[in-house]
């Protein structure tokens, strides 16, 4: 199985599913030079959001810890620990801040 991310040009293959550890993320370099963070939860569901932490500007969200609060999956930024909803991109600690989200899917390896 591979992990695919939807970008402007269509579905981009980013890595084999086995490269993802449940509960952790990886960073992906997108064709336009921007970065996404892809995560796998314990149930094996993938999520993808922008990799840039809006509070510090650093591209580090992929290195945060994944968790679940009120049934919703989130990642906590490794820098100042704000949490971001992995499905909506909304910051759970500051409702005025959000990061972008990407559609992501797993597909059989070609």
């Amino acid at each position, binding site marked *: 199985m591979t992990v695919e991310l939807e970008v402007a040009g269509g579905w981009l293959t980013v890595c084999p599913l086995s490269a993802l550890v449940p509960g*952790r993320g990886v960073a992906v370099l997108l064709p336009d030079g921007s970065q996404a963070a892809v995560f796998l939860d*314990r149930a094996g569901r993938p999520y993808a959001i922008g990799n840039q932490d809006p509070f*510090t500007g*650093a*591209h580090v969200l992929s290195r945060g810890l994944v968790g679940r609060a009120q049934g919703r999956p989130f990642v906590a930024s490794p820098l100042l620990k704000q949490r971001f909803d992995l499905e909506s991109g909304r910051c759970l600690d500051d409702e005025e801040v959000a990061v972008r989200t990407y559609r992501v899917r797993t597909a059989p390896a070609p």
Partner: protein
Amino acid sequence: MTVPEPLPAIVLIGHGMVGQRYLEALAERGATATHRITVLCEEPRPAYDRVHLTSYFSGRTPEDLSLTPAGFMERHGIELRLDDPAEHVDTAARTVTARSGRVVPYDVLVLATGSHPFVPPVPGRDAPGCFVYRTIEDLLAIEEYAKTRSSGAVVGGGLLGLEAAGALQGLGLATRVVEFAPRLMPAQVDEGGGAALLRTIESMGLTVHTGVGTQEVLTGQDGSVCGMSLSDGSTVETGLVVFSAGVRPRDQLARAAGLAVGERGGITVDARCRTSDPRVYAIGECAQAVDGRVYGLVAPGYEMAETAAEDLLGREKEFTGADLSTKLKLLGVDVASFGDAHGTAEGSLDVVWSDSRSGVYKKLVVSPEGVLLGGVLVGDADAYGLLRPLTGSVPPVAPERLVLPAGAGAPVALGPSSLPDTAVICSCHNVTKKAVTACATLAEVKKCTKAGTGCGSCLKVIGQLLPAAAGQGLCGCFPYTRAELYEIVRTRRLASYRDILDGHGSEEARGGDGCEVCKPAVGSIIASLAPALGASGYVLDGEQAALQDTNDHFLANLQRNGSYSVVPRVPGGEITPDKLIVIGEVARDFGLYTKITGGQRIDLFGARVDQLPRIWARLVDAGFESGHAYGKALRTVKSCVGQTWCRYGVQDSVRMAIDLELRYRGLRAPHKLKSAVSGCARECAEAQSKDFGVIATASGWNLYVGGNGGAVPRHADLLAQDLSDAELVRLVDRFLMFYIRTADRLERTSTWLERLEGGLDHLRDVVVHDSLGLCDELEALMADHVAHYRDEWAETLSDPERLRRFVSFVNAPGAPDPTVRFVPERDQVKPDLAVLTVGGAAR
């Protein structure tokens, strides 16, 4: 055709903090829908946080300071006219004329015109270079003018004067403060407090004149400020002058309109904040309250705003006075005063703790019956949050225990839980403990009660009152404390987070992903107990890897631009020239910034994730191992050179430091651990500020525990004396394992020791006299740790699978992260923050 009855009109004059609070109070009560509201504001910007004005100089923008929520005026149909002050009030015609010429009729008029700074009538006070310190516009003007000057003076050594002085110093000016009274902050602190404050402020490089008046502002040939002559006959040079000599209520409009004013100024109001004309209210600093006082603080102003809003709606609320408690951080010095700080009540008694060395002065005023009446805290105002709500009651412990510093006597057993339900926790918004504890989270507290949104001095106590901090569980996922989880993991021999969460987590967390709070805590517990559980000691093995915080996950310290620092272990700070050269070569070859740290080692900053394995390959080859500067583990054991080299040394402190560091390296704990060994009582290694510190005596070693540098410094307590090498190591083994077993998550040994029931005596009973029969077990756990220690970086480098995660991008393993860039500074590099912009603006 019928014409609808026009809505009654409210005109508010002044849009400061109190004016905005009044509008919010109306909005909360639905009165904005039933009234037509016009606000006349003199300043060019809507209400902002004047209390935190000085934070503009530490990076907050005027927008950050705004107190007016976006869209608030539109949402409530309020007309806000900026830059258009009221010039005339006609109480007979019930109209207000603004500077623009507009005439606004009112049914109800609210005066919230605030204060204006008092400028003493000295010659030269209007010269270019003279300023007041009241509005954002004032600050912008001072900032601009300061660029052309190298020195400045503040007239007035009160709260605001000292803030202004700090701001001038921050702008790079040599700064002096001239205070007419014989001490700084005469209104808030007493003589002893003023003396402590003076020492601290002078030590920061400011010049202070007390008991001296300003006679004249001197001007140069171009007419601008060049100095001041003082009442002691001296003349000082200064490039600018800021007047901060108090404020006067702005009551001119009211006077001209024929409203009653107090003898010393301030619009006279009754307990419902009505002036002598019942259709006119006055609130905040322009009003003289029914107790005859003009309050220059925001909390009473807010309460007056609420009172006037309630009265408008025909509800009963009275404002009859407020306390003058204040807490602030001046130039980095904590200052607080509350209640009857000057001990004016008859028969009142003082309890004073004063430590001139550290600039700490604490005084409590108590009645003969033991009722706490007030106090002054300078240099350490941590207790303010607890003491102020206790004012008016008899504290549950003796007053001297409330002022003694931690470690200098019996630990203070008083926590926020001992406060009565009726204790006021947030005095800005008058919120009781009961209202706070009805909420579950800080966000809820702020939303439902507004507590914590004023001056912020109550936030610490609120944090302690909320359930998460009350020891009811580690986080939402576990109903157990860290110590309880440790016991569960140890006795059930659980080495899998999944098993722990699914078997012992809260109902709703089972089967889920946990959270960022419990995952690293459980990861740490498993790592500390690994040999006993039969688990792999390698923290990145299998499921363990998903638990580690970023630092542990990449075995390096994450820095602000996403790069990492690399810290090789230098046990005891002893290093050979060859190894020094290797560190230098590695840093040079990878372009890293190097710094010698307080822990006596060399940090290498600026490594990208994908460089870490190559950097460590070189270091491991040269005989270095992981310094565990990441994660919660033993950092360093610092040492002096001891008896080998030093004329005064009485033991070999270097050897002991190396032995201890190697023994406890890699030990995962609730918090990072630091240690030091000094070769004599001169204490060059600063062992008493460490979690465990050792000081040599002529006959052995003295062991100190529970010390702390950092944000809340604490001197360590002497646990045992004149120990042999073996006795010392055995005691440290027991101490550390007992701490790891019973401490809370992220709890340092210092706070743990203070929380421990029975304190130091109990600890001594357990680890020296084995009162709980635990010592064999504690020693065995440590022996396991020592026997199973392996260097994490050597292990990582030997396994290609593990190395695979050290890439910047999963889909481009060779590509470096283009946002991790550096620019030169002092012949080395620093992060290029310009590339870290969010939405176009760098944060």
